[in-house]
């Protein structure tokens, strides 16, 4: 009997230890997933900022170009670069950042669930964010283009917010990931569906800047307004402006003119890849072991940082 008790105690201790080991095994990859989700959110934000920055830069160059080519003695120019963005407005950027906040909130909650602490609630700030997101979703405050997508996104934001505030229903990480997968996909699809158009607006503006630089160089050269050496340096300066402004399409800049059947460069690809990686990363939590989650989270982080670096460098070049 005494021997039996000893076995029972050893068994209990080993079960408890393996449970703790389970938590620590999962906690680290989930932490990576969380970090990557934050990076993906920053990448989407940087992308939308780049759309606006490039459009405004195009408007500034256009005003300088108009002045330089105008024969009107009353023509004027502007050095401030004041801009009214048309393609994506600040309000529209706020809505899209809100959607990414929901994804970040989900990742934060997953990290809280993965800890061995008894209290798996989020901190006060995150709880307030969850409450605000839920309110926004149920009051129709999420404004996107397609009503079918909006319904899915509202349901997603609401579900994520409720999950973030709850610690009973989603006590199991794998179940949580499985249940939330369609909601994450709804948000990612909503953002990806319009990112291509925004990306093409970036490409259009960069092409226009290139065109104006070419005109100014050729005009000053043809009219003999500058010495040959100055034309040479004008060309070099113009190339510097373009390369600085155009990290997405450097390849396109280097490609020969008029290639047979060219395809538009997809300036939204880096950010859309990062968004796809969120869905893949969550799928890994739902289906695979910690090794699979590590791999998916690392891929997600890498893609998100690449996208963020590209779009940030567009803004910094200005």
């Amino acid at each position, binding site marked *: 009997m005494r021997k039996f008790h000893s076995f029972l105690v050893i068994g209990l201790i080993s079960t408890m230890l393996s449970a703790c080991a389970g938590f620590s095994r999962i906690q680290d990859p989930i932490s990576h997933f969380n970090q990557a989700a934050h990076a993906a959110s920053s990448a989407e934000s940087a992308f939308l900022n780049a759309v606006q920055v490039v*459009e405004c830069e195009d408007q500034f160059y*256009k005003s300088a170009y108009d002045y330089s*080519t105008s024969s009107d003695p009353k023509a004027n120019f502007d050095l401030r670069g004041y801009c009214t963005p*048309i*393609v*994506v407005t600040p309000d*529209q950027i706020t*809505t899209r950042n809100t959607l990414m906040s929901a994804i970040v909130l989900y990742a934060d909650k997953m990290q809280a669930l993965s800890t061995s602490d008894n209290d798996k609630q989020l901190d006060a700030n995150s709880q307030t964010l969850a409450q605000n997101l839920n309110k926004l979703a149920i009051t129709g405050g999420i*404004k*996107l*283009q*397609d*009503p*079918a997508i909006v319904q899915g996104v509202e349901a997603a934001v609401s579900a994520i917010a409720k999950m973030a505030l709850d610690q009973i229903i989603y006590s199991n990480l794998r179940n949580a990931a499985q249940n939330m997968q369609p909601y994450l996909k709804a948000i990612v699809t909503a953002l990806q*569906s*319009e990112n*291509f*158009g*925004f990306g*093409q*607006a970036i*490409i*259009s*503006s960069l*092409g*226009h800047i*290139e*065109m*104006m630089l*070419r*005109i100014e160089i*050729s*005009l000053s*050269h*043809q009219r003999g307004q500058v010495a040959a050496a100055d034309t040479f340096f004008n060309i070099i300066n113009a190339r510097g402006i373009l390369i600085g402004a155009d990290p997405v399409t450097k390849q396109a800049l280097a490609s020969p*003119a*008029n*290639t047979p059947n*060219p*395809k*538009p460069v997809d300036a939204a690809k880096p950010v859309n890849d990062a968004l796809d990686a969120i869905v893949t990363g969550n799928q890994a939590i739902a289906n695979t072991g910690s090794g699979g989650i590590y791999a998916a989270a690392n891929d997600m982080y890498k893609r998100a940082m690449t996208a963020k670096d590209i779009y940030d460098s567009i803004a910094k070049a200005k």
Partner: protein
Amino acid sequence: MPEEQTPKPIDPSKLSIINQLIYQLSLILLDLLSAGRATADPTELMQINNEYMAVGTILNQAAQAQAAANDTLFNQVTSTLKTQAKMLEDMETQIKKIVSDVQLAGRVTGYIAEGITLLIKL
């Protein structure tokens, strides 16, 4: 106080047309940029730039329509877009005059024709 009306749903087929239109306009811009890179003649460059700007404006309007929050705003932007069909028609003739590369000009006018078909469908 008047009740705020719920915005009507946007026709998903129209959104698909907008996406196709953005792609088509991007192809035109790509070829116009190629035409611009192929010349250092300022007059020709300025003419190409005018066409580029016109197409770029339509593309920005299309991207704006894509991000529109409700049917009212979407319809406002698409009705502006529809008026651009005539401008694109005029552009077909203009492109043939200013782009010296016949093959490239032919391809651009083909893209323009497809763009006009999409605008009419809106």
